């Protein structure tokens, strides 16, 4: 899993200071198929960005779980290759904390998308 360098920097900031809104609140999806790198700061080709569904899940120690949902209309016509998590909401803005890539998933308007990710601190 590619937790980006920016995410690590944000953790360092978080340990030492109280930065407003500097935590994961959004999930972006995209149609870009580029390699996932820790140096990524943006999605390769972002198509949609939603707020997280509900609050992050902290029920397990040292873990935080995120969930994001995209409805069939949002997904219609999308060939999904990537997703990422961010702190900022405006489309194409802010730096991504995490980016994942996978084989293409085609959405023709008849399916919804749900993304679930859990991060663990060791």
């Amino acid at each position, binding site marked *: 899993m590619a*937790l980006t360098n920016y995410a*690590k920097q944000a953790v360092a900031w978080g340990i030492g200071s109280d930065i407003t809104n500097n935590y994961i609140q959004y999930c972006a999806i995209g149609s870009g198929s580029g390699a996932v790198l820790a140096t990524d700061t943006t999605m390769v080709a972002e198509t949609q960005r939603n707020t997280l569904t509900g609050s992050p899940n902290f029920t397990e120690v040292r873990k935080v779980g995120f969930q994001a949902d995209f409805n*069939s*209309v*949002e997904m219609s016509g999308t060939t999904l290759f990537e997703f990422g998590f961010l702190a900022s909401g405006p489309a194409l803005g802010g730096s991504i904390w995490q980016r994942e890539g996978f084989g293409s998933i085609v959405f023709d308007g008849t399916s919804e998308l*749900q993304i*679930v*990710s859990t*991060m663990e*601190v060791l």
Partner: protein
Amino acid sequence: MINTLLTIAGTTYDDFIQMKVDVSNDEYLTSSEFKLIFDNPFGRHSSHFSIGDEVIIYADKDTDPATTKLFTGIIEEIRFDGRENSQKVELTGRDYTQRLMDITIEPIVYTASEISTIITNILINANITDITTTNVNVTSTTLARISFNQIPIYDAFTQLAELAGFYFYIDADKDLHFEQKKNISSGLTFDNTNILEQTFDTTRKGMANDVWVYGDRQLAGYKEQLSGDGGSVFTLISKPHNTFIEYLGNPLRGAVYQMATVPESGTNYLISYFDKQLIFASGTDLGYDSTPISGGSVLVTYDREIPIVKHGVERDSIAVYGQKNKIINDKSIRDPQTATDILKQQLDNADPYQGMVDDLKGWYTLLPGQTVNTTMSDFGLNSTELPILSVKYIFDKNTIYLENVIRVKFNKKIKDLTDELAKMNKRLDAIESADRQDTDIITRLEQATGSLLVVGSHWEVRTRNIAGLNLILDSPSFGLLDTNTLASGTTRSWVLGHSQSSILGTSTLGQVTATFITVASGGYSY
């Protein structure tokens, strides 16, 4: 037969060739220690041991496995030795007394403190948490003042034990024992029925009956009122430091005697420190005369040294054994009472040392500090309540069957070369520690390693089909009324059963019954 049980880092080992355990207290001037030798064919033990592993040794007679804990310590050295087809590994280490030897006391002064409270406080301040203090007994000695300046805790405890007439050691359960000497009798008597071999030594080595204790020197202000007599040289009462001279109420300028052939211009007087002389400057080369006129008032203000020195003599011992001096130089002694306490303790050693070593037949439970009775008429020995300094156990295949594993040392340790080296080292420490003060401001650098690793443990991409229960505005599939599409555009969606896109007021219209199916996933398994 003697049975043993050896565990290292929780694992039991029974293939040692030889196991030596030396259990001793501070009067033996060393810690308890062990030495283990294993055969190491084909590297059998190549990865079994690490520095810092805890070693626990049990031994009993006719109880298998043994349950009496003799020793708990830590591996401090691992040495492999191979030659041709023979390989051995030797482990050595000390008991938890090594904590006291390895850690020094940050500069601190205790005033009006009972000695056992000092002992426990030192351990707390040093943050030594793996040694308990259940058996630190209260003493009847309260010290007016004692200071420690970065000396090992062990040396400090030794000093405190001597001042209190106590001894100390750390037992196999890692509990510190600080107990009165000759206070616990073992009830055992050793004589020609259970002694296999004995050495009995009486010597003047180590004794002293004429003791000098030199502590620090303090400066104290002093003032002398002199009157001019026509001469230029005045002798002061003490050797002067920080001299300040006033003549007829005016301060004068001073210099050091014989620093220059002709004093610097403006100099009025010179100080000859070792001669305690105040010399007023005059002469043709200098060009003026600062000598006070007869009857002229000279006020001399200076600091004089007041040394803390105590001298004690044990006359009876000198009469019998002859004078034997001992000089203690310890700059950390900064008050007369501490010097007196140390002097008295040193004079307790005014008689010749008697040291005994017995190799015993059989098995006995012995602890350093306990007393035993011993009789050996051929050596003129018939003593009671001799304190045990050290108990050495040597376990190998012969000794455990023959039951001759125990060697005991009694009474006083006869000083040897290593003791002299240790003494020299202590003297150096005492000299070097003179300038360390408890009031010093210390800049501390602490280094440590920690880690924080954020891993994306697991992620899933899930989809679910919405066919069957849907009316989606503008959807070519689910937005049809007959053949026409309701609404248009990408931002206007209304999906039956969707948690976000099917809200009317606060209620959801319709329900999606299909479940999400994972179509992609990744990250680490957990």
